[in-house]
């Protein structure tokens, strides 16, 4: 059998941790090969080894049957390997084209031939149906387009073997569909794809085969059409998992959050929230469904005081919290799981313990007479770590050294444990594995059942549908529909999110 890629018996260690051990990965030409594993299982590490960013301690790599020694991304490029990294590798201040040609620029005299480059980018993007604006600045484009820029980067370099590390984690359902069709057309062109994802249904939908790794060890490779999501999931976690989160019907009571005619601007001074109304009651989960960039982030930031409200009113338990300082808003009983955990959620250079009191450090018992009480802080942190199953050596460990999933669990523990009246969860499971997702979903429902109001913002329809007691669809800064999850389906939600009016059931807007 011809394999385009063979990684045999790979071992990669980091100080104090074996990220990959005995891993085998064989990719056939023209297939989409999924790589599955929990957070921290070692998927990205394995791909970074293949792409020449890390050197393995042991093992062998063959490309098109040839033994190779990939010591740098350059060599990987030359071998036709391209990679879209889990965290995008784009320079914000550059244009799309500049990002794509960076490192292999077409020249005219001494100059970068930008016009030629733009033409080429346009050509490739037309060829594969990747809609991008070659002249746009990367910082101004949506995440989905950034994703496509990353793919273009590989295609521009004429890569035949494409590695996509969790490409769908940040995409909207529509964008995911687009990506899937892009991937299919790429393999038709004879390219091979290694796809990392936590979403089993995506694997079922596009992949031909799937290799599973667990805690750094290779578990095995299966043909996708001979397996089921359940089997994949249990291979991955090593036990049975359930997908549909069990929950009782909601029993909503008093209104906790009441937003009236809210207006908020984004960083470029453009109105993003434009007269939005929203209510969340005790004991219910309200899911905000919408395509990224319709004012979700601005809405959450306005509620939490991180962004000024230009107009309208935000009431919490009938008291206005409009334009209060974030600290005052927390003190009024709001908790917030932020959407970007590295940027907002954690001080990566603080210990996990210190991060657990990031909002409450100044209150007793953590501070008495201005002095921090480290015993109290670390005891408290140990309790959260215990309760929320945060996998870390101890509470003195730096937040930076935890895996993404565990960082997220820590944040959720911190926010939930404050017993807020209103819990805002923005993309709480982004990039997490099914085990972690299951855990977090359970926690959110538990909170609801304790009588808290939960506002969920997510780009993943499944999540919104699964968890919410009520779905509010956001479009261009307004709530355009309020629907019950069991009275709607993906199809209809998708249309609403794209701005079409609702016709079937519920109150007309």
């Amino acid at each position, binding site marked *: 059998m011809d394999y385009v890629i063979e990684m045999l018996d790979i071992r990669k260690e980091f100080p104090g941790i074996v990220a990959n051990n005995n891993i085998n990965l064989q990719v056939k030409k023209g297939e989409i090969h999924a790589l599955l594993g929990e957070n921290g299982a070692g998927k990205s590490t394995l791909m970074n080894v293949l792409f020449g960013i890390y050197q393995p301690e042991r093992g062998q790599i063959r490309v098109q049957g040839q033994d190779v020694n990939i010591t740098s991304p350059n060599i990987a490029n030359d071998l036709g390997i391209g990679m879209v990294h889990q965290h995008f590798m784009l320079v914000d201040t550059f244009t799309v084209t500049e990002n794509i040609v960076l*490192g292999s620029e077409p020249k005219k005299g001494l100059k970068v031939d930008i016009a030629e480059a733009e033409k080429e980018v346009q050509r490739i993007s037309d060829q594969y149906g990747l809609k991008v604006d070659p002249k746009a600045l990367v910082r101004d484009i949506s995440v989905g387009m950034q994703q496509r820029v990353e793919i273009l980067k590989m295609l521009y370099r004429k890569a035949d073997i494409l590695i996509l590390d969790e490409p769908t984690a940040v995409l909207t359902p529509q964008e995911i569909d687009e990506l899937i069709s892009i991937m299919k057309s790429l393999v038709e062109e004879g390219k091979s794809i290694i796809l990392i994802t936590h979403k089993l249904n995506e694997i079922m939908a596009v992949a031909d085969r799937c290799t599973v790794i667990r805690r750094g060890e290779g578990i095995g490779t299966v043909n996708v059409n001979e397996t089921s999501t359940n089997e994949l999931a249990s291979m991955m976690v090593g036990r049975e998992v359930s997908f549909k989160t069990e929950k009782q019907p909601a029993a909503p009571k008093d209104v906790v959050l009441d937003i009236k005619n809210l207006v908020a601007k984004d960083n470029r001074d453009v109105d993003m929230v434009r007269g939005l109304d929203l209510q969340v009651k005790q004991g219910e989960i309200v899911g905000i469904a919408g395509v990224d960039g319709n004012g979700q982030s601005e809405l959450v930031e306005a509620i939490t005081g991180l962004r000024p409200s230009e107009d309208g009113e935000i009431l919490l338990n009938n008291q206005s919290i409009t334009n209060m300082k974030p600290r005052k808003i927390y003190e009024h009983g709001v908790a917030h799981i932020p959407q970007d955990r590295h940027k907002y959620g954690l001080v990566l250079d603080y210990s996990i313990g210190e991060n657990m009191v990031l909002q409450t450090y100044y209150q007793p018992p953590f501070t008495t007479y201005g002095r921090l009480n480290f015993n109290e802080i670390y005891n408290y942190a140990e309790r959260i770590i215990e309760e929320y199953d945060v996998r870390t050596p101890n509470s003195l460990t730096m937040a930076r050294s935890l895996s993404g999933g565990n960082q997220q669990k820590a944040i959720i523990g911190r926010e939930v444990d404050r017993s807020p009246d209103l819990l805002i969860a923005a993309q709480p499971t982004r990039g997490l594995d099914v085990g972690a997702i299951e855990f977090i979903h359970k926690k959110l429902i538990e909170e609801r059942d304790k009588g808290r109001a939960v506002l969920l913002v997510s780009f993943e329809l499944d999540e919104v549908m699964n968890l919410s007691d009520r779905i509010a669809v956001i479009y261009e800064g307004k709530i355009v529909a309020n629907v019950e999850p069991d009275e709607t389906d993906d199809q209809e939600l998708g249309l609403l999110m794209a701005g079409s009016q609702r016709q079937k059931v519920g109150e007309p807007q």
Partner: protein
Amino acid sequence: MSVLQEIIPSAFLFAAPLIFTALGGVLSERSGIINIGLEGLMVMGAFVGIVVNLELAPFMMENFGSTGKLLTPWISILVAAIVSALFASLHAIATVTFRADQVVTGVAINFLALGVGLFLIKQIYGKGQTDMVDAPLNSTDIPLLSDIPFIGPIFFEGTYYTNWLAVILAFVVWYVIFKTPFGLRLRSVGEHPIAADTVGINVNKMRYIAVMLSGFFGGIGGSVFALTFAQNFSHGTISGQGFIALAAVVFGKWHPLGALGAAIFFGVAQSLSVIGSGIPLLENIPSVYLQIAPYVLTILALVGLVGRAESPKALGTPFIKGSR
């Protein structure tokens, strides 16, 4: 004589060394390496420029007469630039290869340059400062251009080729940074080194080049300063110009033409403060106000006009391959 004709040449003269040095700063910082050592790089440039000039001038004048004398400062500047580039490689080794704190290494560069310069002066000349050079840079009227009415006398009469070299270099650096593949790569390294690495750009090499270029430019700046102003080398020859150049880098928002403008702004502010006491209108203002005027003006300009400058994102962070 018009006030402009008085202020501009003197401002320009003062600005030229700042422009060179600030361009170096822009290059280095664009690659992500903070360069507080600009002062030290200027010191090194001044030291080498003066010593080479002193040693070379007799030979050149003997063999090539007045052409030799004209050439001497240029050779001195070139040698100073090269030596300073080598000297700056220390900063590169420390910050790039050994991931040293860039601010602190810069401070060390400043100490080291002065220490080495004075130590060697003592070894060479047996005293703490050199004599004045015989072949300094001299002003000239630029042929043709100085005949242009109005503009000519202000910009091209009694000016220095180094002034214009500075301006031209600012445009060259601008072109290089924003138009060439090298510049694109340089900027990517300063903004997102990990991304640059994944497309096969050698981040460390780019940073070495940028820092050494900053030494090269700083060396030009220092030697031009020494060869126009003090014309000798001592502990006080370079007294803060490097820091002003650093300010010009930030003031100019890490843009070569911005740095050019900022340096000229400093030059004008400085010559206003100098000339002010000779202008009847300003004569009665206590001199301290004129002395602090350039610095106060800078602050006001930053607050009022320029506002927030966005530095290269990776500025100050060492690149560790494979880090997340």
